[in-house]
């Protein structure tokens, strides 16, 4: 017992000695020696996260729930292997449909997370960013599976494990995003199939579109459905584009209206108010709802996103 106590007090004294030495080294700038000595006396981070890091960034990987399907087992294994090869693997969280990603990310930000990688598809991408776009982290995307992966194409990120190279290269672009109805974040697109409405742009002019039913689209990261060919996206110009086109009527209406009726109107805006005559179906970043009024205001802060060379902007 006495011997054990003596050993313990000796170890304590030794560690005290090393700590004093460390303090001296801190003052003298011997950082490398500090690291090795701190490891020897067990002063590693007490965090349970055990993050593997590249540079100074901690990586958090958010896996969508559909990836638990055995169909994706091999793909996920390959992705994780590639991430380890690149030394950028980190903490992983499997999301459920009830998880609030913002709370999770904020919690991990306190533990040094600076990069959040969404592993999933378009739905996962939108679900996470519509809540967490304003957080002070860099986002990345690993698209998994062939279905519902249009944003990956826009961002220039290849599917599955090939995306890891893009994540590793860390080419970061700042993207515009907006707030919709002062609630959720709006990142990609908004679509209204048919509505009569009045539009107020940037509090400087109003457009009256009540004499006809219009198809409406707001584009940021996806082109409007009726203007997809040779469309140039501008998600970094500090404004958003809104497109109006007379909604397709019956065959008779099309014949009577002729070619002129199909002309598209385009406005650029920073803040817009759409006032529908009657509540209309609105699809905003994949979420469907009936709305009578929508406000969209572009955020001053931009979204930091890891993109590939093949991006479409």
């Amino acid at each position: 017992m006495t011997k054990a106590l003596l050993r313990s007090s000796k170890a304590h004294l030794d560690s005290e000695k090393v700590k004093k030495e460390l303090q001296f080294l801190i003052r003298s700038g011997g950082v490398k020696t500090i690291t090795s000595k701190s490891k020897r006396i067990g002063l590693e981070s007490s965090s349970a996260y055990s993050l593997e890091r590249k540079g100074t960034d901690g990586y958090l990987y958010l896996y969508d729930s559909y990836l638990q399907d055995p169909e994706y087992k091999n793909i996920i294994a390959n992705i994780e292997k590639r991430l380890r090869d690149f030394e950028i693997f980190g903490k992983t969280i499997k999301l459920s449909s009830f998880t609030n990603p913002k709370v999770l990310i904020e919690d991990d930000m306190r533990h040094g997370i600076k990069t959040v990688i969404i592993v999933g598809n378009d739905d996962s991408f939108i679900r996470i960013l519509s809540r967490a776009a304003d957080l002070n982290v860099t986002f990345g995307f690993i698209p998994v599976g062939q279905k519902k992966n249009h944003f990956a194409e826009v961002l220039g990120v290849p599917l599955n494990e090939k995306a890891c190279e893009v994540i590793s290269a860390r080419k970061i672009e700042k993207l515009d995003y907006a707030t919709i109805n002062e609630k959720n974040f709006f990142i990609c697109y908004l679509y209204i199939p048919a509505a009569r409405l009045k539009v107020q742009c940037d509090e400087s002019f109003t457009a009256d579109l009540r004499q006809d039913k219009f198809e409406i689209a707001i584009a940021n990261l996806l082109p409007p459905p009726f203007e997809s060919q040779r469309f140039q996206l501008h998600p970094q110009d500090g404004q958003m584009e809104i497109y109006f086109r007379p909604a397709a009527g019956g065959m008779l209406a099309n014949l009577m209206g002729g070619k002129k009726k199909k002309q598209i109107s385009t406005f650029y805006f920073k803040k817009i108010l759409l006032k529908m005559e009657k509540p209309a179906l609105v699809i905003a970043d994949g979420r469907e709802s009936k709305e009578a009024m929508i406000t969209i205001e572009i955020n001053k802060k931009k979204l930091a996103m890891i993109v590939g060379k093949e991006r479409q902007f």
Partner: protein
Amino acid sequence: MSDKYAGQAGGDVETIVGPSVKVEGEFVSEGNIIIEGQVTGKIKTSKQLRVEEGAKVNADVAADSAVVSGEIRGNMRLTTTLELTPTAKVYGDVTTKTLIVSAGAVLQGHTIMDESEKSKGKSGKKSEGYDESSVAVI
């Protein structure tokens, strides 16, 4: 963007007011503007304005240049060129460096050819396109 517009406005179209759209207020853009519907208020752009046939503009206009085929009621101030096609109707004062008026176009108002600006830069451009047109200033 459609090829039609890209070709017409130098591939840099930004704002389009379609035929069945009415706009009211201060319409300011950093890019080209094409109007096919109705605009009331003010129009300002540092690039080109096109007012298509059938369009009605009830506004003062400030632009780098303009090609008018529709109707404008208001004063126009262009930095470089105003071109009026055969279907154009302009009711208001015009200030421009170069004016091109096709036969059939109507221009009612004072026209000021901004000599002082012209002498600074692109002098001699005035005569371009004049051979087959007539000028109607009432």
